[in-house]
C-alpha cells in the first residue's frame, strides 16, 4: 500500500498534528509492507519539504499561486500528487485545514473517506477504522469501500513518526495550469497570542460561562495558565459572548485536545464540550454547582466559586 500524508504547516515547519498523521501512515505501512510519502503545498516550502525527508520521499508544490490555502487550488494539487505517487491511501490530521481541503480532494477522488480516526485494527487483511460520532457519545467501527481511501486522524491518538536511516528523495510537483480561480484570498485574522498552542500544550486551562468578561478571562484563565506554562481554552459560551476568540473553542465543533492536565473553570460539562477534552490524561474541575456534569468526567473536583478559588490558586503557585 502506498500512503500519502498531506502536511499542514505554519510557513516554516510542519504542524505536530500532521506528523502524527505520518506516524499513523508508518504504523499502517509497517503492517502491510507499504510505503509512506509526504506532500507539502505552499509558497517557499522547500525548507519544510527538506525536514520531512527524514520520514521518506516528499512531494512538494511550491508556487506564489499557492501562498494561501484555498481549497479549490490545493485540492487539485492533492489529486495530482495522488496520481503521481499512485497512492492507495491519503491521510491527514483532522484540522479545519484538512476538513476543508482534503475533504474536497476526497470528493474528486471518489469519496471513500473516514474522518477523525482514533484507532485502527486489522481483520482478514482489511483495515478497520474506529471513530467517534454523536459528539463522542458513541464510537463506530467502519471499513471503507473504494480507492484511494482517505483518512483523517485525531493527532492525539497517534505518535510522532520515526525517522528513517536514509533521507527520502524530494520531488517537486509542477503546478498545472490553469489553477481554479473561483476563490480569492483576503486575509487571516489570527488571535494566537504568545501562549503555547492549545493542541500541543501539556496543561490547558479552560474557562466557561462563569467568566464574566474579557478582563476576567485574561486574569483568571490566562493568569492560571501562565503560572503553569499552559495554554488557554474556552467553551462555546464564551466564544459566542465575544469573551474568547473562536480559535480557543474546545469541543465537537472546536478543537479536540488531550493534554496531561485539563483544568475546567466554571464549565458545566455539556456533551459537545466533553467531545473535545474527555481524553485528557487528568481533568480538574472547579465549579460552584456540586451537581455539574463535568465532575463525572473529572479526576479532581473542587466545589467553589472560580472568582475566589482561582486567585488563591495563582497566589499559592507564585509562592516560592
Amino acid at each position: 500500500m502506498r500512503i500519502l500524508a498531506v502536511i499542514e504547516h505554519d510557513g516554516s515547519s510542519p504542524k505536530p498534528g500532521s506528523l502524527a498523521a505520518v506516524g499513523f501512515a508508518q504504523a499502517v505501512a509497517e503492517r502491510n509492507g507499504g510505503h509512506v510519502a509526504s506532500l507539502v503545498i505552499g509558497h517557499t516550502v522547500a525548507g519544510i519539504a527538506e525536514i520531512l525527508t527524514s520520514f521518506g520521499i516528499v512531494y512538494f508544490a511550491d508556487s506564489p499561486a499557492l501562498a494561501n490555502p484555498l481549497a479549490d487550488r490545493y485540492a487539485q494539487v492533492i489529486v495530482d500528487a495522488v496520481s503521481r505517487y499512485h497512492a492507495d491511501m491519503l491521510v491527514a490530521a483532522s484540522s479545519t485545514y484538512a476538513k476543508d481541503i482534503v475533504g474536497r480532494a476526497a470528493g474528486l477522488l471518489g469519496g471513500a473517506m473516514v474522518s477523525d480516526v482514533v484507532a485502527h485494527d486489522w481483520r482478514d487483511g482489511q483495515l478497520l477504522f474506529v471513530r467517534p460520532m454523536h459528539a463522542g457519545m458513541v464510537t463506530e467501527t467502519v471499513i471503507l469501500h473504494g480507492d484511494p481511501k482517505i483518512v483523517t486522524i485525531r493527532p492525539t491518538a497517534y505518535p510522532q513518526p520515526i525517522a528513517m536511516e536514509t533521507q527520502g528523495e524530494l520531488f517537486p510537483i509542477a503546478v498545472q495550469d490553469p489553477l481554479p480561480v473561483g476563490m480569492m484570498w483576503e486575509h487571516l485574522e489570527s488571535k494566537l497570542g504568545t501562549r503555547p498552542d492549545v493542541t500541543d500544550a501539556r496543561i490547558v486551562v479552560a474557562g466557561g460561562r462563569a467568566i464574566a468578561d474579557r478582563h476576567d478571562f485574561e486574569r483568571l484563565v490566562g493568569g492560571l495558565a501562565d503560572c503553569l506554562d499552559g495554554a488557554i481554552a474556552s467553551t462555546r459560551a464564551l466564544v459566542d459572548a465575544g469573551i474568547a476568540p473562536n480559535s480557543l473553542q474546545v469541543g465537537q465543533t472546536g478543537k479536540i485536545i488531550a493534554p496531561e492536565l485539563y483544568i475546567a473553570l466554571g464549565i458545566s460539562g455539556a456533551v459537545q464540550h466533553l467531545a473535545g477534552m474527555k481524553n485528557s490524561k487528568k481533568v480538574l474541575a472547579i465549579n460552584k454547582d456540586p451537581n455539574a456534569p463535568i465532575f463525572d468526567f473529572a479526576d479532581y473536583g473542587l466545589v467553589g466559586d472560580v472568582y475566589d478559588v482561582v486567585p488563591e490558586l495563582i497566589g499559592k503557585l507564585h509562592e516560592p
Partner: protein
Amino acid sequence: MKILVPIKRVPDPDHRIRVDLQRIALELSDVPHIINPFDANALEEAVRIREGPVPDAEIIAIGIGDPAWQQELRTSLAMGADRAIHVGVSGPPDPWNVARILRAITERESPDLVLMGKQAVDDDSNQAGQFVAGLLGWPQATFVSQIEFIPLDPEPSIAGHQLRVARETDTGIETIRLRLPAVITADLRLNEPRYAALPAILKAKRKPIETIPLTELNIELSPRVERIALQEVSSSRKCQYVQSVDELLDQLFLNRCL
C-alpha cells in the same frame, strides 16, 4: 437567484443515545428528532439573504431520507423555505452518496448557491459539503460565520455578485471571496435561527413538498463507508473531591500533575 439548502434530520443531541444489543444500530425510536443545528443556521442565512440583499431569492430545502423527513422539511418551510424536495431513501446515506444526490438535484434546479451545514451532529463527518463542491467543481467556503454580498455591477442579477465570507479556522478568522455558483457550509456563529411563528407554520402547510425517487435521478447508492460495530462511550473516571486550594495543590503535586 436560487438557494438550495440541504436539511438533515438528526436525533436531538440533548438526549442520551443508546446502542442496540447487536451493537450495530442506535436505538432511536424514542428519541425526538430535530433539524441538524448547522442546517438550521444555513436555512436562517438563506432567509436573511432574501430579506436583505437579494429579495428575489428562491429558497429550496432538500432532505434525503425516509418518510419521517417530511416533518423537518415542513419545519423548514415554516422557517422560510419556499418549497421543499424530498429524495426518498430508506435511511440517511453516507456523505458520498448525499453529495452525489445533491449534485443531481443541483443539475436539475441550477441553484446559484448551495448553503448547507458544516457537519451533521449525528455522524459528525463534516464531508458532504466539500464533496459536492468538488463534484460540481464550484468554489467552496466551509465553516462560514459571516456572508457579505458584493455587487459587482448595478444590475441586481446574481451573475453580478461575489461573496465575501469569514471562515472559522483553527488559526483564526479567515476572509475569502468567492465567485458564484458556490457551496457554503455554515458554522454555528453564522446567525441565531428563528423559531417559526404560528402564522408561518400554517402558511407552510400550503407550500409544496415534491418527492423524487432515486430512480428518477438515475442514481444507485454505492456506500463508501460500511459500519461494522458501534460502542457506547462512558466515563471511567471517579472524581476525587478536595475541600480547599491547599488540598488541591497537594493532590496535584502528589500525582505529578504539576
